[in-house]
């Protein structure tokens, strides 16, 4: 409809209609609407091109240098292209931090959804959201001042685990809260009405329904924890070995990116930085996909409960 655009009216006021006739104005308006519909979706490219470029560039840099030996070799990663130690250490980091954050967050979420008056719950949710929105560097500073200096743990594995766990807690908390809040009220009424105590309702009725959603919260927290850099770099120093005690230094995968990104291309730290980035992207994307799949299933399940 190029003819529509070739004669756009200069002014968009009712007098135009009188001068040109209503048809021209209508054509301009519908044509404008249609072109907005053609052009606005192009903005998606601003999101899609960088993310694809990011993933493919890092894969292109990392994959040719990767091998099973690189991933498993526990040699000194500062001298050799060996990622075994950081991968094992990161696994320890993330599992301990996940356990801690689940312990800290899950009961609070359930309690907020089930037992607290609405105005208290509102402020508690706000506080969890504030924690989730807190810059990572501030959580890192908190870990440094509290665990490293005040508790005297030094720049150690355990200080990093606690800092990371505090960073991950709000995500577990919020999804647990949301999962229990979104159970339909008639389910709860049926349970309580047939004589269940609140605790029985939570364990026998609520948890089976809410479990997948709670699991998404745990996975989401893991995805965020895996990629977090500042809380770890500020509270742990590097170690070329897997730590054998909780007060020893340790190396995290994201820390390798931070130390290697500006080195000479081709040098070992630079190669390792890209390999670490590739592994992290794989893990994060996989976790995000799992989260989406489970969340979609959970919504379907909820919809089923309404029927």
């Amino acid at each position, binding site marked *: 409809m190029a003819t529509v655009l070739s004669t756009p009216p200069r002014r968009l006021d009712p007098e135009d209609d009188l001068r040109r006739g209503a048809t021209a104005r209508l054509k301009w308006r519908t044509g*404008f*609407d249609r072109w907005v*519909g053609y052009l606005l*979706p192009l*903005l*998606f490219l*601003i*999101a899609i091109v960088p993310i694809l470029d990011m993933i493919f*560039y*890092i894969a292109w840099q990392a994959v040719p240098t990767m091998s099973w030996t690189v991933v498993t070799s526990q040699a000194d990663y500062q001298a050799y292209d060996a990622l075994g130690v950081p991968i094992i250490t990161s696994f320890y980091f993330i599992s301990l931090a996940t356990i801690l954050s689940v312990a800290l*967050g899950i009961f*609070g979420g359930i*309690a907020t*959804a089930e*037992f*607290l008056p609405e105005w*208290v719950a509102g*402020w*508690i949710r706000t*506080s*969890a*959201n*504030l924690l989730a*929105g*807190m*810059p*990572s*560097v*501030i*959580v*890192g*500073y*908190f870990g440094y*001042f509290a665990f490293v*200096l005040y508790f005297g743990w030094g720049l150690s594995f355990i200080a990093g685990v606690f800092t990371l766990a*505090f960073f991950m*807690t709000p995500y577990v908390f*919020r999804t647990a809260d*949301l999962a229990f*809040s979104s159970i339909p*009220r*008639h389910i*709860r*009424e049926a349970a309580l009405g047939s004589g269940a105590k*609140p605790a029985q309702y939570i364990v026998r009725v609520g948890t089976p329904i809410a479990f997948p959603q709670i699991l998404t919260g745990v996975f989401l927290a893991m995805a965020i924890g*895996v*990629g977090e*850099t*500042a809380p770890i770099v500020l509270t742990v120093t590097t170690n070329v070995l897997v730590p054998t005690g909780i007060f020893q230094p340790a190396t995290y995968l*994201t820390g390798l990116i*931070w130390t290697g*990104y*500006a080195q000479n291309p081709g040098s070992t730290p630079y190669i390792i930085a890209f390999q670490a*980035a590739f592994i992290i992207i794989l893990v*994060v*994307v996989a976790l995000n996909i799992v989260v*989406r799949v489970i969340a979609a299933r959970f919504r379907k399940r909820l*919809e089923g409960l*309404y*029927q």
Partner: protein
Amino acid sequence: MGSVSPDGAVSASQPLPPPTPSEGRVVRTTNYVQTAIALVPALVPAAIVVGIAVTLVLSTGFHNFGWGFFGPIFNSNANQFGMLVFIVGSFLTAVPALVLSMGIGLGIAIASTTYLPRWLTQFLDPFVDLLAGIPSVVYGIWAFVVIAPIFGLLINPWAVMHLSFLPGFASNRYSPTTAGTGLPISIFVLTLMALPITTLLIRDALRSIPKDLWESGLALGATRWEVMRRVGLRHSSRGIVSAAFLGFGRAIGETVAVAMVIGSVTKYPTNVYDVTWTMSSFMFQILDAAFGNSLYLSALAELALVLLVITLTVNIVGRRLVSHIYAEEVAGI
């Protein structure tokens, strides 16, 4: 599919609304013992927030920097801790990034809710969610290795040649061999990183436009664009403002990615290509250097407190504007 009307009846025709946090709660407990016990785990996030604030306050050691803390001169060797340069750097990167990502986010959200068919948005929207999930250090290495040369060799020299009539765009010290780090690429990275927050929140807000409002607009003869501009945006203005606040909170707090591309020099930028430093990236990179210097450490703790106050304020306002953010379920916002 089904939805619940206020009186509890189920209608099969409409899609299920996003769950609101209060939906499951019917029986308001008056058992105070139970409530008190429930408060203990529920207060964990609040306790962590308060713990962080208290730790930072104590770590300042109550050194009285006075108003000199916000002064213009930073020289750690002479114990002059004027943090103005970092505050300026933070706002010079976060504000343009917020404006850009709000514009792009608004466009994407309108396209996604109004113009694109459902099968296409189901395919495209996850990319924006994924953008939220990519770790900032990955953004950083990608921006430093891939995007910085583009800025350093193409965009910045082009702007020097062709846009130098604009204030701040002229530069006699600029050379194309510069690594490309500095303000423009930091703004670029921050725009990308704030984009998922603004997009998802605006999309949430636009999705909550009542269908009858939308259809009455169309029935009056308005086009989709006109309904969106005159009715939809007005109806969802709170959500959009909330998106701006939360996007700003993300942009000003972003640490590692900015630290990799900002240039990390303690100086006020003299033109738009210049290197500088932001509060968060400065705090992140300088902590090692401050080790053992108690005055330096307390200055850093105080800077952390400033950043904490800014982000907390912005986040409280942004979160209180809307009742529930659906996007947090899948994207962890």
